């Protein structure tokens, strides 16, 4: 589905029941450790922050319906409301009417913009930068520096594997790119990186700027078409290639895609990779929406799309989704010495970090508030380390912890229960440190 109009009938399934506002709406009764984390929890980042119905998915579905029916005219005001959503997909996970909520929200954003409304200021800015020939990234950094972090193979078209670094790895979290490169080397994967790589388009698509997205998508597809496999370290890029490119281009990908953790997972489960070095810390794990829930939901959907009997196949589809959610845990459990503690909201019901969907750029207060709620949940497990694998989650959590530390300094209060002492660690970085 590539337009809001095509999603009309799916949107019409919404009966405004508002189950989508809660984590664990759709699961057997769940027992947590205490009153705060047990049963079902209001878990929509936008709705929790703003409170009005329009900031919850349930309200957005009815705004989309009013828009489709021509009752609600597109406006800047409407775009402001629709964009204040991390597109985390917790709502989609809850919906027993299988509404593709994230697709509808993204297509609604695109439809508003296509009708002539300017993208929100900061979103427009990143879209413009991605188009500028000397940049092609949302960070305003020179295109010529894209592979400056790398001292290995560049632009080797004879390689079968390419590492799609993404803009954040290339310009902001070069450590993650370096660790990924190092892991790939340790795992025996020969790869190259391309200096001509352009933004994957994730933040552009999420914020409704589809024309720009299509341009970068087509460029990337053309550029990488002769490789067998593309590997990723960025959750957003991976999701965009794996889920959005086939959907938006209408064609299957010409190459296979894998997140670096997936490669590690395969090797670990096949018994070909064993992590020997211990990591003697109390650790919890945050599921990045892009690589965990979004991919899980797409796996479920793919199975159901082929099924002529959902009554029978829905369980099989849900199992396949659950198996995907389990994968990072298998990797984590393979690390010796670790005291692994799950947070209350995990897997499909994981609470978002608050950065996605263009929110970090345009709505920093909402992003920070959401991250604070999540780091508090992480701290409630007693963990010292909050592990995840997504550059946006890492940045937003670090910002939240920094803010807590600052508040501690200013007030003299101990905010460790809120997460002020948490160390935020990228799993790829940790893996690199532990692998010989």
């Amino acid at each position, binding site marked *: 589905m590539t337009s809001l109009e095509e999603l009309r*009938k799916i949107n019409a399934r919404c009966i405004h029941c508002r189950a989508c506002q809660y984590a664990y709406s759709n699961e057997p009764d769940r027992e947590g450790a205490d009153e705060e984390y047990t049963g079902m929890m209001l878990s929509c980042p936008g709705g929790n922050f703003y409170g009005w119905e329009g900031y919850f998915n349930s309200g957005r579905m009815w705004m989309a319906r009013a828009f489709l029916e021509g009752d609600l005219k597109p406006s800047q005001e409407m775009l402001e409301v629709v964009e204040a959503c991390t597109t985390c997909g917790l709502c989609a996970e809850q919906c027993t009417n299988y509404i593709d909520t994230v697709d509808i929200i993204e297509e609604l954003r695109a439809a508003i913009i296509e009708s002539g409304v300017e993208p929100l200021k900061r979103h427009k800015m990143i879209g413009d930068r991605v188009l500028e020939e000397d940049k092609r990234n949302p960070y305003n950094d020179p295109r010529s520096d894209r592979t400056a972090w790398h001292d290995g193979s560049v632009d080797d078209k004879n390689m079968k594997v390419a590492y799609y670094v993404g803009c954040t790895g290339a310009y902001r979290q070069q450590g993650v790119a370096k660790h990924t490169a190092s892991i790939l080397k340790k795992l025996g994967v020969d790869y190259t990186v391309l200096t001509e790589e352009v933004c994957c388009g994730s933040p552009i698509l999420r914020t409704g700027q589809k024309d720009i997205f299509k341009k970068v998508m087509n460029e990337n597809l053309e550029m990488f078409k002769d490789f067998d496999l593309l590997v990723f370290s960025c959750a957003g890029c991976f999701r965009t290639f794996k889920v959005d490119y086939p959907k938006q281009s209408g064609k299957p990908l010409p190459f296979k895609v894998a997140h670096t953790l997936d490669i590690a997972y395969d090797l670990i489960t096949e018994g070909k990779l064993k992590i020997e070095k211990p990591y003697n810390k109390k650790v919890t794990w945050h599921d990045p929406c892009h690589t965990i829930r979004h991919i899980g939901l797409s796996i479920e959907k793919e199975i159901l799309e082929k099924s002529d009997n959902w009554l029978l196949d829905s369980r099989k589809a849900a199992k396949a989704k659950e198996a995907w959610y389990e994968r990072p845990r298998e990797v984590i459990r393979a690390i010796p010495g670790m005291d692994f503690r799950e947070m209350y909201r995990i897997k499909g019901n994981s609470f978002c970090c608050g950065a996605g969907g263009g929110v970090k750029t345009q709505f920093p207060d909402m992003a920070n508030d959401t991250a604070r709620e999540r780091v508090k949940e992480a701290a409630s497990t007693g963990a010292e380390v909050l592990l995840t694998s997504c550059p946006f989650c890492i940045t937003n959590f670090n910002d939240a912890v920094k803010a807590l530390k600052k508040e501690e300094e200013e007030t003299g209060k101990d905010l460790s229960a809120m997460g002020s002492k948490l160390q935020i660690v990228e799993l790829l970085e940790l893996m690199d440190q532990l692998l010989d």
Partner: protein
Amino acid sequence: MVEYNKVTDEVVKKLVAICGEKYVTDSEPLRYSYMARGIMGLEAVLPEVVIRPANTEEVRKVLMVANDNLSPVTPAAGGLSGGFALPAIEPGGILMDMTRMNKMEVDTENRVMIVEPGVRCGDAWRIFKKRWPDWAPPIPDGAPPGATILGDAIERGFSLVTGRYGPQADMIMGLEVVLPSGEMFKTGSWALDGAKAFYRWGVGPNPDGLFLGSQGSMGIITKAAVKIVPHPHFKTIVAYGGDSWEHIVEPAWEIGKYEMGISDNTVMVQGGNWPLVMTRWPKSNVPLDYEFYKKIGIDEYWMNSEVWAHSQEELDFTLKRIDEIYKDYEVKKKTVCKQQQLHPKQIASRLKKPNLIAVPYALYEAGFLFITWYCPWLESSKMMEEYCAAMENYGFPPTMWVASIDHARQAIVMPILCFDSSKLGIYDKIREFNIETTKSFLKQGWINYRPDPFVHAPMTFSKSKDYYRMLVKFRKVLDPNLILHPGRLAIPWASVTDSPSPLEGE
């Protein structure tokens, strides 16, 4: 028709002065976000302004402003199983989103909880699980976590223990009500300064029945004292099949007679037919023939009992007696009521509260509507037969659900009308279907619950004119300017439409 005024900028300023700028909006997209058509009703008018009051005092002040301006007011919080109260008359007026009023006090000694309108079932259940695990809040069954306890109670809805305790309104111990004049009062023993809400009938005649089921048309309820119930932890579900509605309804009645016995343990008794399973899935991706369902062990009709007990022994005894009653019934009626083999996951999902059992029917096509009727329990099989035939005549799958109220004294019968809400003319077809079935059912003395204000309400009141006249009188005492949402009962008719009144001809 009653003439209302539009919400002016001046009124908005007054609302801002009461609730604060942050909690008042006339943003068009946000107003649209509150809309809903389907599941509980098809009528909705865009509110002119939405406010989120924090407490009773703000509600009181807002009502006085609305009353002065002659602006309609609709209170709504989490609603019921889906959707919620929405303005149904032009102009849309003020929509009060009550979700900020979400305080809850629990008194286990007197077995009562006091809830504000915004206390959601999901939150109440979560908190009870940890703080009062041996008590249960009377949350609606089959409704999602966002539905509210107060919404369900004042709607006389259906709770997780309705099979034993009756409709949710029977759980009420006291109300705090605000009227458009700004007057406020409490009902029951609560009316006495400093008294607890321990005695529903209070210090004199109790007017709470005027507000229960009024959907806010008589006054805005800002607090309710509601009974809490014991929450024993030995629980299960048993289900028995049958070859007709009669053969699942009658044995449930036999069990229901054991009040002060095993029937008290069967807190929830509900049943349905095989299309109730089929229509949970997309029409294009599920077998449409009963043969498939038969093959996977689903009877054409079934009734299940949710049993709660204080010990395994009590649970086993109850299940044994239920089984014996079914066996006796089989002999008596020369029929077969086979016990259904439930997967542990089916039991777990049924026992889970709140649950989404009532939600997935939009998947069959793209929309659905619950139409709900009450009738004496043993008459429910006749109603369901008639209803299913009418549904098929109109091209709807005959998806039907039934549940017992108060030890199988009454039945709540609920056809689930699955339809494609994006299809032109579908709402007219539903209206015709409603008119036809309502005509027949009213003749048989059955009562619509949550009526369509343009079909069930006028048709019902045209056959209960004296009662309607009294309701209008009461309403005019409590809300002389008729600014409150007229509710799905549409009292008085003139506040809703210029169409002929139910009293036409007098």
